[in-house]
């Protein structure tokens, strides 16, 4: 029973992390209609910035706080230099150009930080278990991720539904040309949104870093998952991204935890151990294919 609760919490934690990554992606896609394969690179930079700043300041929390504005700056620069020129192009051009950005990002990281990965050591207070109930220890760090993730999700909800900026963002998502006609500085809005996406991705990266270790190309594999999430949730919908991220987080975590035992009952131990992660990955793709067949624009997709 404790195992189930622990795995469920892990699923929530993964889901929230994936939500942070997917939210930025779906915002950029929904508002600027931009397919950004390099979003995973922003995730990677977040982790690397945090690794450096933490080592510098000898504090994980300070390192994390410094990494965020650095990521914002990076996002803004990339938007102005390259991404801006892509808005008028078709999706294939976006895919190709951002694919090029991935190549540049990976080698740039290798040049600055070297080919070996980095580890981010956690401070003692985060490294011990927290007791949710007297019998239920849970890693404090993972719990912190859940708290921060939930807080950011609530902040995003507030931003998008209750502020003027959020209103512009939602208006932009449904009709880009109109908001220009309404006198809003569309260029600045797009840069802002891209920057926001970069910060969210970087936050996801630096929070994941102590768990998965920092390495080159760490964003590329998780990027596909983020795309699957926004497709399931519906492009442009933050709510959809949230729900889809939670579902995917659960399936992935519970799948990896439960499947090996389930499979061992009729497969050999080694076979079960290799098949399980493959199967839980497949389950997610099957889910996406299923959703698209039923609702071709995702669960909460706005555009048709």
């Amino acid at each position, binding site marked *: 029973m404790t195992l189930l609760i622990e795995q469920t919490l892990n699923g929530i934690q993964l889901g929230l992390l994936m939500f942070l990554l997917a939210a930025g992606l779906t915002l950029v896609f929904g508002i600027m209609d931009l397919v950004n394969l390099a979003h995973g690179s922003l995730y990677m930079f977040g982790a690397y910035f945090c690794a450096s700043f933490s080592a510098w300041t000898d504090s994980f929390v300070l390192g994390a706080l410094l990494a965020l504005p650095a990521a914002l700056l990076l996002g803004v620069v990339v938007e102005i230099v390259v991404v801006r020129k892509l808005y008028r192009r078709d*999706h294939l051009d976006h895919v190709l150009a951002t694919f090029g950005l991935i*190549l540049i990002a*990976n080698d740039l990281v290798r040049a600055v930080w070297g080919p070996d990965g980095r580890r981010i050591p956690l401070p003692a207070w985060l490294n011990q278990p927290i007791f949710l109930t007297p019998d239920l220890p849970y890693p404090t760090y993972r719990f912190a991720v859940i708290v921060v993730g939930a807080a950011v999700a609530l902040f995003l909800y507030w931003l998008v539904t209750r502020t003027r900026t959020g209103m512009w963002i939602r208006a932009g998502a449904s009709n880009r040309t109109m908001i220009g006609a309404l006198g809003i500085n569309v260029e600045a809005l797009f840069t802002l949104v891209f920057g926001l996406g970069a910060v969210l991705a970087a936050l996801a990266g630096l929070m994941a870093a102590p768990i998965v270790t920092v390495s080159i190309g760490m964003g590329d594999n998780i990027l596909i998952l983020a795309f*699957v999430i926004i*497709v399931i949730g519906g492009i442009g919908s933050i709510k959809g991204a949230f729900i889809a991220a939670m579902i995917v987080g659960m399936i992935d975590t519970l799948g990896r935890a439960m499947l090996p035992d389930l499979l061992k009952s009729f497969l050999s131990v080694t076979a079960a151990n*290799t098949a399980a992660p*493959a199967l839980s990955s497949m389950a997610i*793709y099957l889910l996406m*294919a299923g959703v698209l067949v039923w609702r071709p624009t995702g669960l909460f997709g706005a555009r048709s």
Partner: protein
Amino acid sequence: MGGFLTPLMTWRGRIAAIVLVLLGLLPWYAPWLDAAGIISQKFALTLMTRVLILAIAAVSLNLILGYGGIVSFGHAVYIGLGGYAVGILAHHGITNGFLQFPVAIGLSALFALAIGALSLRTRGVYFIMITLAFAQLLYYVGVGLEAYGGDDGLTINRRSDFAGLLPTRGPDKTVAFYIVSFVVLLLVLGLVHRLVNSRFGMALRGARSNEPRMQALGIATFHYRLTAFVIAGALCGLAGALLANHTEFISPAMMHWTRSGDLIVMVVLGGMGSLLGPVYGAIAFLLLEEFLPGLLRIALTWLHDALVALLGSGAVGTLDAWLRLAEYWQIALGAILILVVLYARGGIDSLLGKARHG
């Protein structure tokens, strides 16, 4: 008679002919290049065989991407399917090429039919994602196939045997395989040429140009696109079977989504919707991958020496430090890709001269 030679009347046509002739005659002038110290014969043939095989895959993708406007991000899957068909059969002792290759092609066609039937009903980025999803699905199936090496892959001990007509071991096998690959490329090019200029091709290209218009003419575009999708998958499976023979190794990595990305880059780099574009793209992409570090070193050396002459060695730094930059050649590759997308969107083929309509 005139029809056959008309391509030679344009510069694009002449360059195409020259490239094909240079490719075809490589086995004959490779020893000369070897003797001149330019490049080892074996290395040249091995590299260029890989170029030929990926060119076949790129040509198959161009059929649906360039001519059909169908952005499939899962095309490398068929390389994997074709390769695994050959590999698995060889693993179980079936090395008869006349059996393996039709299975490879047939299996790829079948999967393309299933995937296409489900995906082609979606549009835009949803289509891209669903093809990506199916590709990753099959990738994970490959990873999970413990019996056939899983993630580590499977070595193929014996190449496909075509009733002894093709040497599968010994010194002749490299040249023979190169020639076979080249002939297959020519046949595939010929087939695609016929296809895109036939009524079927017109329907496909019209659907790319303006789909509602085509439907308003009475053409049910879904069926033509699906057919093109299946043909492209089958041809790509053929490339996969050849690749498995060439590398004598199969692994799920052949099917990873980044491989599909590579194929798209080849098609776009070479020029979408032109017959030889994907061939140019495959050559450019693979040669860049292979030689860009060296080229960068040469360029950086030249630049370094020129700047030293202008500003003195104190200001510029050591040659070694500069040369170390060449290690990060993927930055240059990424930048080239971005520049092509922004400024030379028509690819290499468009730089060679104006194309005919459609």
